[in-house]
């Protein structure tokens, strides 16, 4: 890796606010200004003097326990040694960091730390990137006077399925325990014992099961904590790395992807100030093993005589083109093709597929969400908040699933806003979540009745729902009236129609016109896919089909004639009214055309769509199924054609997170076998359909997105390559967005705060010194242009009509919208309503194909209100029979007092005692109702 400098440019410290609260002091003879209240160590670092440290971490509170950062500070009784991480800068003080006295103190601390630290660097994962090794070399005494026996422990001991502990290596800096307690809020590890027998450990039998445990491995300044997947797998100096964005969920944490011999060896969190502060969740950190999987699809396959056989791309794409044409013909229109999925694609892939589907095939039945999100135009039409704005707000109202399960690092950010800041949380949820203990008020609603609760908050005269405590409701109203309100909107339950939640969201949007919104849709690049138009009724750049018709017709030659179907309706239509197994509806198909062909883009509806029966009927009923996938999932058995696609870390491109932040994806690997990048498959398929998308490289795709998609206007490749834009650029570009992030693109990251991540190579144009300023000015101009909106007609691709009148850029979506909301019939007294929530570790490919994570998938019980359980005469842990109109399952029941009466909850896509919750959900019903019986 790169040379390590002992003095670095500051990594992520904020320049002092010069106007006020400023302090001037002398640092090694120089005059330095700092913010009042700042710690000496941070002020010195910004001034270019790096003081050695172990326990200090810029993202956690100072504790001053390791004494490595001792410096001389002048005081009334002369200069004395003080820990610079624990002393605030004081006006006029004189600080010396390089005196003999300081040197002697550093020698002493290091000699002391090495008394018990084993010298097993050659067999230690941290060797080569170890702060103890490096600082001993730079500041240590060079020899030790200690000749006695060092302490020994059994090594290593597993403290969870993911983390191993070598206790004798620990230097007792308390970074891991502080992370667990302060940042994650789960003190599952602690110091046990005392003095030379002090060790880090778990409580016997209670593993370090935090979703964030991997961060302790990353910040441990020695090799005491190591990760199971990485242990002994590589030496840091053999690793190659690139900066990228995690696309396991849509928070979009910045990561350093490190690889060796065309395999990812590990992911490390990068401290992106606006997003993840260096933290990752364990799923994002370890899911890369699915990319390394031996099972990866490497060649296109076509079903011949009932079996999938390997063919050339040429043949496979011909078969696909024929199949799609046949479906269109048979259905009498382009609506015969339905495209499902796309949240795993890059923005470029999503755009190319959208252009193929909507511009070439002409079908609008395209949906990147798998019936687990919210109506796309509602989400895209809301005024957007950034994560920083949510964390810094007065009140955040959360109407979504459990954020710790769905968008883990967003949970950390919000939790920190509440615990360390002044943020108040109002939670609207059918059940308790990980945020509930932090909520100022947590209000319950009956599945299907979110709107009723939203109205009660919006309108003081509205009746309080029976599920909400009146005092709590009053408090929620008060908090919702605050100045800065951010509303986090997602899908609290997969057994409740997204339109019902969207309706509640719109009630809040109307009532709180100043509020901004943060979507909590969890799939990797779902926000990018929706922005690129992979949703019915949408075109790229957050534009509706009708408003964008002229602009995109001009650019693409064609757009769909009318609004198409979403995933649920596509599947329903493909299943057909006669479609076997328990078909419940006999509705005429919208648009007349029955969906005959399904193109499934890197998704697995069989396990990941709320209604399993509907998917089975659709796959049985469809004439032709194409799966674009990287791993052979259960879907392969139903596919007529399987096209192997490159995965994360194997293709460059961009991704868009929940904030609308566009960031670069790095490429570090060559994709296996014959697999292709996502955009290329669409572009080549277009050729086989007799058309040409005029997109020949990922850069060309981006340029076209920038030119055509209004929300992405001005975000050119050179803007994305600006050093200050390393952490991404929020779309749409506004003049104020030019402030960007505070991480200077080319500065090395603090090697002690995040060992292992040093100057990361960025994908794209290499940043060059001196360009930053010029580019920032350019961005301001771009932003101004983008804001003006009307920058002429889109450039017209060959083969399209160039004669049409020049039109203005279409407007971006702006809600609120009229949406069709299903009517919820009140529950009869025998039924209960189902809540199906997401868990972090589920049967999705990112977990199931990763051995270390697959073992963490929980077995979920059915959670029932204790009174309802009593009424049934079943004790907690007993069996309960759950019946729907078409099926019944025997599940294990546990009492959950957080649930309202007549509401039961369980988890989606995880094993239950019998079957899965997708067997119970009816995706055509607004809410899923069940009967509970004794088995």
């Amino acid at each position, binding site marked *: 890796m790169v040379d390590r400098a002992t003095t670095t440019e500051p990594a992520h410290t904020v320049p002092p606010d010069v106007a006020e609260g400023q302090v001037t002091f002398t640092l090694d003879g120089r005059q330095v200004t700092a913010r009042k209240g700042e710690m000496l160590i941070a002020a010195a670092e910004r001034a270019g003097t790096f003081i050695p440290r172990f326990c200090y971490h810029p993202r956690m509170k100072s504790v001053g326990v390791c004494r490595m950062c001792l410096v001389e500070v002048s005081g009334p009784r002369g200069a004395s040694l003080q820990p610079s991480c624990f002393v605030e800068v004081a006006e006029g003080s004189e600080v010396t960091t390089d005196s003999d006295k300081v040197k002697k103190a550093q020698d002493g601390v290091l000699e002391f730390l090495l008394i018990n630290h084993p010298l097993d660097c050659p067999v230690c994962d941290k060797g080569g990137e170890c702060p103890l090794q490096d600082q001993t070399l730079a500041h240590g005494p060079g020899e030790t006077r200690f000749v006695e026996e060092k302490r020994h422990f059994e090594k290593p001991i*597993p403290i*969870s*399925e993911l983390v191993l502990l070598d206790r004798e290596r620990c230097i007792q800096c308390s970074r891991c325990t502080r992370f667990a*307690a302060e940042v994650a*809020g*789960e*003190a*599952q*590890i*602690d*110091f*046990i*014992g*005392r003095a030379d027998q002090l060790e880090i*450990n*778990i*409580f*016997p*039998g*209670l*593993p370090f*099961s*935090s*979703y964030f445990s991997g961060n302790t491995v990353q910040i441990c300044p020695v090799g005491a904590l190591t990760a199971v997947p990485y242990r002994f797998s590589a030496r840091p100096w053999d690793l190659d790395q690139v900066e990228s964005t995690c696309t396991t969920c849509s928070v979009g944490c910045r990561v350093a992807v490190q690889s060796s011999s065309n395999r990812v060896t590990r992911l490390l969190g990068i401290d992106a100030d606006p997003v993840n502060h260096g933290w990752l969740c364990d799923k994002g950190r370890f899911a890369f093993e699915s990319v390394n999987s031996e099972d990866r699809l490497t060649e296109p396959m076509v079903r011949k005589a009932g079996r999938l056989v390997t063919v050339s791309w040429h043949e496979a794409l011909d078969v696909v083109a024929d199949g799609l044409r046949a479906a269109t013909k048979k259905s009498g229109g382009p609506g015969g093709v339905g495209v499902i999925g796309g949240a795993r694609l890059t923005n470029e892939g999503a755009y190319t597929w959208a252009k193929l589907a909507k511009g070439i095939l002409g079908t609008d039945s395209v949906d990147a969400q798998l019936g687990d999100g919210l109506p796309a135009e509602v989400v895209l039409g809301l005024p957007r908040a950034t994560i920083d704005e949510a964390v810094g707000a007065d009140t955040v109202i959360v109407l979504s699933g459990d954020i710790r399960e769905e968008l883990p690092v967003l949970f950390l950010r919000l*939790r920190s806003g*509440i*615990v360390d800041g002044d943020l108040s949380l109002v939670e609207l949820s059918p059940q308790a979540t*990980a945020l509930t*203990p*932090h909520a100022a008020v947590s209000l319950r609603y009956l599945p299907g009745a979110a709107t009723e609760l939203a109205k009660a908050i919006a309108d003081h005269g509205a009746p309080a729902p029976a599920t909400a405590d009146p005092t709590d409701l009053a408090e929620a109203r008060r908090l919702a009236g605050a100045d800065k309100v951010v509303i986090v909107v997602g899908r609290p339950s997969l057994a409740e129609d997204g339109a019902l939640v969207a309706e509640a969201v719109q009630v809040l949007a109307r009532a709180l016109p100043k509020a901004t919104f943060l979507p909590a849709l969890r799939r990797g690049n779902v926000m990018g896919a929706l922005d690129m138009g992979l949703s019915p009724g949408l075109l790229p750049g957050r534009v509706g089909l009708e408003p964008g018709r002229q602009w995109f017709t001009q650019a693409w030659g064609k757009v769909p004639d009318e609004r198409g179907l979403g995933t649920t309706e596509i599947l329903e239509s493909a299943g057909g009214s006669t479609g076997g197994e328990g078909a419940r509806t006999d509705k005429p198909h919208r648009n007349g055309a029955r969906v005959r062909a399904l193109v499934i883009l890197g998704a697995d509806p069989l396990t990941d769509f709320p209604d399993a029966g509907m998917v089975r009927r659709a796959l049985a009923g469809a004439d032709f199924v194409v799966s674009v996938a990287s791993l052979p999932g259960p879907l392969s058995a139903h596919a007529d054609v399987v096209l192997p696609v490159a995965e994360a870390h194997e293709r460059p491109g961009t991704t868009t997170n929940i904030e609308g932040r566009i960031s670069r994806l790095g490429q570090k690997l060559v994709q296996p076998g014959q697999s292709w990048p996502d955009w290329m498959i669409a572009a080549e398929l277009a050729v086989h359909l007799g058309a040409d998308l005029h997109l020949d490289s990922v850069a060309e795709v981006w340029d076209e997105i920038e030119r055509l998609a209004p929300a992405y206007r001005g975000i050119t490749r050179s803007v994305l390559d600006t050093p200050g834009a390393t952490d991404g650029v929020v779309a749409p570009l506004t003049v104020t967005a030019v402030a960007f992030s505070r991480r200077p693109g080319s500065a090395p990251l603090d090697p002690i705060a995040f060992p292992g991540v040093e100057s990361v190579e960025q994908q794209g144009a290499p940043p060059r010194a001196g360009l930053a300023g010029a580019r920032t000015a350019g961005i301001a101009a771009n932003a101004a242009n983008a804001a003006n909106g009307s920058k002429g007609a889109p450039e017209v691709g060959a083969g399209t009509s160039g004669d049409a009148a020049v039109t203005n850029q279409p407007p971006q979506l702006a809600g609120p919208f009229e949406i069709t909301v299903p009517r919820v019939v009140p529950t009869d007294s025998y039924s209960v309503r189902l809540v199906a929530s997401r868990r972090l*570790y589920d049967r999705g490919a990112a977990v199931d194909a990763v051995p270390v994570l697959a*073992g*963490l*998938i*929980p*077995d979920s019980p059915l959670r029932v209100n204790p009174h309802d359980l009593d009424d049934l005469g079943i004790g907690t842990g007993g069996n309960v029979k759950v019946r729907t109109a078409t099926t019944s399952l025997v599940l294990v029941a546990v009492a959950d*007092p957080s649930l309202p009466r007549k509401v039961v909850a369980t988890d989606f896509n995880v094993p239950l005692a019998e079957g899965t919750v997708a067997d119970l959900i009816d995706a055509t019903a607004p809410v899923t109702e069940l009967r509970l019986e004794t088995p």
Partner: protein
Amino acid sequence: MSNAAHPTPVDRPRSKGGPAPALTHLGGATATRARELIALYPEPRSALIPLCHLAQEQEGWLSPEIMADIAALLDLTPAEVLGTASFYDMLHTEPVGSHLVSVCTNIACLLNGAMELLEHAESTLGVNAGGTTADGAVTLEEAECLAGCDGAPCVQVNHRYVGAQTAESFDQLIADLRSGARAAEIPTHGTLNRVARTTGLQADRDQIANERAAMAEAQAQRAAAAKDTAANKAGA
């Protein structure tokens, strides 16, 4: 060791009342007393050490189950309770016999034959220092200065002084402990002194806040007065 078996513990709530946690091992009277103790402090966590002593009275040591109960009472994690309990010598996270016999081997006692006494104890009891006899009657412990240097070599049983011991008197002591002859004077290990605080602080958060505010106010006034004086001086 799977997460399925151990769901993530609930994050520590800020100030939620919630239903009382279900205790699995702390007995009724002890649990009641525990709640009384917690009420004495403005922060529940401050009652951690008193609760450890209280719980130790029940079984003579802090079993994992009891530590989990303490954690539940205080909104801590079991790991945090273990972290504190394992720090203190008088809190035991391993089983202890009904009599904890501590032999001091620090300087004054050393000079008066403590090592010989300890060796004698080890051989007659058949355990090494730190061990517990098979009948569970005695745990032998080597201790640092017990502040009884005037009666060296100093021995304590269940933290009660039993005076300087010789090999013979030590054997008699053990026999008496086993027979229960000194039960009235030396209750079994963990038994607390019955001088328990029942009234007193019972601190009320508002009252504490008010007092702190008043203190801050007074401080500010003093600072202002000092500034005035200084200004006057400078003026003069």
